[in-house]
């Protein structure tokens, strides 16, 4: 009996290790990049990713096989950032997102964003312009751009990662992209692009 029990335990642990190695670890670069874009600090990003993987290992049983492991990991990382990291973050106090969203939900934002950004101008941006433009966005707007445009998550996956309705994902993405384009257009003007 005791041997059987050990076998069961061993096979569970082996399975856990297999899932961890094959399904979780391959996403380490994307996880690190997400962590870095949230914290702007290499050491903080490493801590965040490490904490996420330790939690993921501990709670492997609650990962549903066949579902998107990357989305599951991103959700843990996002929650770790909000619950554990943001509180002790060295960054200045964050603006409450609801306030930001209601401010940017005014129609003025859309109206103020013209489509005079040209494709040649974007393609000529070979320096840090795009990175600076992304980094200067509020964290919640930055996050949806990272999840959708960098990591290729679908809207329904983003809704689960962020615990928000799909409609909010879409409207937040819309605002975020307009603000990103506004930043890019401002850089373009500064650099004298037409």
């Amino acid at each position, binding site marked *: 009996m005791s041997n059987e029990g050990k076998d069961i335990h061993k096979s569970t642990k082996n399975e856990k290790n297999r899932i*961890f190695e094959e399904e979780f*670890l391959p996403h*380490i*670069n994307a*996880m*690190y*990049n997400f962590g*870095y*874009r949230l914290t702007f600090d*290499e050491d903080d*990003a*490493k801590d965040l*990713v*490490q904490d996420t*993987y*330790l939690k993921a*290992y*501990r709670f492997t049983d609650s990962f549903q096989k066949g579902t998107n492991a990357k989305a599951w990991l991103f959700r843990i990382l996002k929650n770790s950032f909000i619950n554990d990291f943001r509180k002790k973050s060295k960054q200045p106090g964050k603006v409450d997102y609801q306030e930001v969203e209601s401010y940017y939900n005014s129609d003025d934002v859309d109206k103020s964003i013209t*489509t005079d*950004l*040209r*494709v040649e101008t*974007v*393609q000529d*941006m070979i320096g*840090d312009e*795009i*990175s600076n433009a*992304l980094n200067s966005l509020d964290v919640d707007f930055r996050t949806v*751009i*990272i999840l*959708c*445009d*960098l990591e*290729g998550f*679908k*809207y329904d996956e983003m809704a689960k990662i962020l615990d928000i309705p799909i409609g909010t994902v879409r409207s937040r*993405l*819309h605002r975020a*992209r307009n603000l*990103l*384009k506004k930043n*890019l257009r401002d850089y373009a003007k500064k650099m004298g692009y037409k």
Partner: protein
Amino acid sequence: MSSFLSKFIKKFKKNAECPEKEKCIEILTLVIDGEANSEQKVYVKNHIEDCMPCNEEYEVEKAIRVLLQEKCTHMAPNDLLESIKTKINQSPTI
């Protein structure tokens, strides 16, 4: 059509406003995000062939995504993977 006339029309269209700009941008975005249905895909394909402002918008959106993917990705440091594995092996509670 002469090339002069063709250029003139192209320039005119480029400077023109799309009468359905808001709707078009919304659908363009769905297509680029891989969230559009077949009807929306056909609409975009047909529309951007004729509408220069929306064509430009479509290309700008795609160029921004390419730029983001090229310029905004950091690889994890080499020691991070080993450090995670070590922590997992050492932790008695896991």
